[in-house]
């Protein structure tokens, strides 16, 4: 598992294009964290990728109009991402009981 930090101008669709570069390769997105960063924005992704995919992703991200910089962090431990995703929802019976109340 590897983390990637992509700095971008938060124009329409840019974040979605960044995520799409991963999803079109059938890569799961166990962590996505986007936030303002100084004058721009930054998104951190954790992806389970091989070396060839890393190169492809870098090149595709840099090809997006408003991507400014791509860097990668240290490999993350798999256990960190072991929590169920998406988070477990409310049990159905509880929901029905609340609705009848």
């Amino acid at each position, binding site marked *: 598992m590897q983390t990637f930090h992509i700095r971008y*101008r938060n124009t*329409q669709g840019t974040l*979605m*294009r960044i995520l799409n570069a991963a999803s079109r390769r059938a890569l799961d997105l166990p962590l996505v964290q986007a936030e303002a960063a100084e004058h721009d924005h930054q998104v951190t992704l954790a992806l389970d990728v091989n070396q*060839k995919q890393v190169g492809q992703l870098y*090149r595709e991200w840099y090809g997006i*109009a*408003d991507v400014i*910089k791509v860097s990668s962090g240290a490999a993350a431990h798999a256990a960190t991402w072991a929590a169920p995703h998406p988070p477990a929802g409310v049990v159905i019976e509880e929901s029905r009981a609340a609705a009848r109340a």
Partner: protein
Amino acid sequence: MEIKGADIVLQCLRAEGVELVFGYPGGAIMPLYDALEGSGVRHILTRHEQGAVFAAEGYARVTGEVGVAMATSGPGATNLVTGIADAKMDSVPLVCITGQVRSALIGTDAFQETDVFGVTLSLTKWSRLVRTIDEIPEAIAEGFHWARSGRPGPVVIDIPTDLLKAKKEFSGPVKFTPHARPADAKAEGGFTDTIVALLRQSSKPVALVGAGAKLSGAIAELRRLLDELNIPTFATVHGLGAVPPETPYYLGMVGMHGTRAANMALHETDLLLVFGARLDDRVTGDPTRFAPHAKIVHFEIDPAQLDRVRPCDLPVIGNLADTIPAFHVELRRHSSPDFSSWRAVACGDERAELDPRGLAQPTIRFLDELFSRLPQDSVVLTDVGQHQMWAAQRYRSASPRGFITSGGLGAMGFALPAAVGVQLAKPDTCVLCVSGDGGFQMNIQELATVHRLGLPVKMVIIDNKYLGMVRQWQQLFYQRNYAETDLSDNPDFVEIAKAYKIHSFRLNEDAMREFPVSSETGEQIDRFLHSPEPELLVFDCAPEANVFPMVPAGAALSEMLLEEEPTQ
């Protein structure tokens, strides 16, 4: 004075040099249509939005200018999607303007609302859902910039109908200035030394030319460089016309249906120079066994195309209009290595003779006859399928934008509407549109557009009454299980053309069994090609002719089939 958003759109299009748009009206985009008269923008009405976007592509492919298509919201916009994907795959500069439901209804699943921005996100270089009338000039300026710059491609600008009707004081179109981008990296200095060194170390170098060589406008420089290198050279389907076919070191098309000589040279090479080709799987065959002995030098403007299928040893990132001359200058400072013995093998008669030109095959003979009688500087378009590959194999022009086809996406139904765009762009040029009977029917309604505009397009249907290329695969790899490829109940295309008031006639493959063809047949073809009117020629041919050579899926280029073999 206040003007409407629709007028702003049209003024901005004129500022970008647009004179022609292709489209189909509807509810959400009606205000834009209402503003067309007197705008200086000529609108071409097609009969399907897909016809409009393919026509815009044809226009863009033959001119190098941005093609513009417009459609309404919902199904109008979604009907553009195939053309947008086609433009993305084949690097075609395209701007699509779509109407959208009024701003207050967006996101409510309103009538004829689709999230065209979301639908086309992965297919576009850039897109924008315009939110205010003030954004319109900037959106159009930026859209045209991304459509044209770097590796050209498609852009979508989605404009809610209320913004097209709204008014504001308009001070004029704006210019877009892009931010500096890290992806605009140029090739590092010293790459020319490295390539020269690699050439000196190699004994079997080859050159592969793709669409990028043409898109860069560097054809003349490339031809001079290739003459200097004098090494076996071949082209992708989009590179056809980049190298004059009579050039002694030129081996034709390479890849799945490439020539035997080209495929063998590519398999045996120890140094592959790639000029503006993206090395897609139709060219490489099994990527793990592609050019197994070679170092690869890849001249490419789009870094995303590097190392996709096979790592390259030396990427040369940049516009070929810059990198090719730089390389040529360095090459001329050194004495040229002698590759004559390699050339004698790779380009020799023995390999050429083993190419199954299939001169006894009537459809191939017919295409040869057509191409040999074409006026100079004609443009040939094909649809997708067997006829496409035969046409690519037999194409003999040195016109860089003279062979137009849907390569990367392989979209059937492309040729006829694209021919509309090409003919409008080149009104004095002979435009030959070759389709199969399957693909022709996918946008057959554009015969109405051809008739209305009186476009003298020369349309040919290779009618073998099958989805021929699929049938070929079924024959070779699926034990002749011809599932759902039988088109033997095709309508009479001659009668359909007459219904659209287009002259049409039929030729049978028996006419191609004489060599040379009879004077009567020759006159029929000449009259067809030189008619000032639109014409349709239906060529009736046998169903089970196959395209060879063929590299089966998953096979190496060296494992091409040269003729029919027992089915697996």
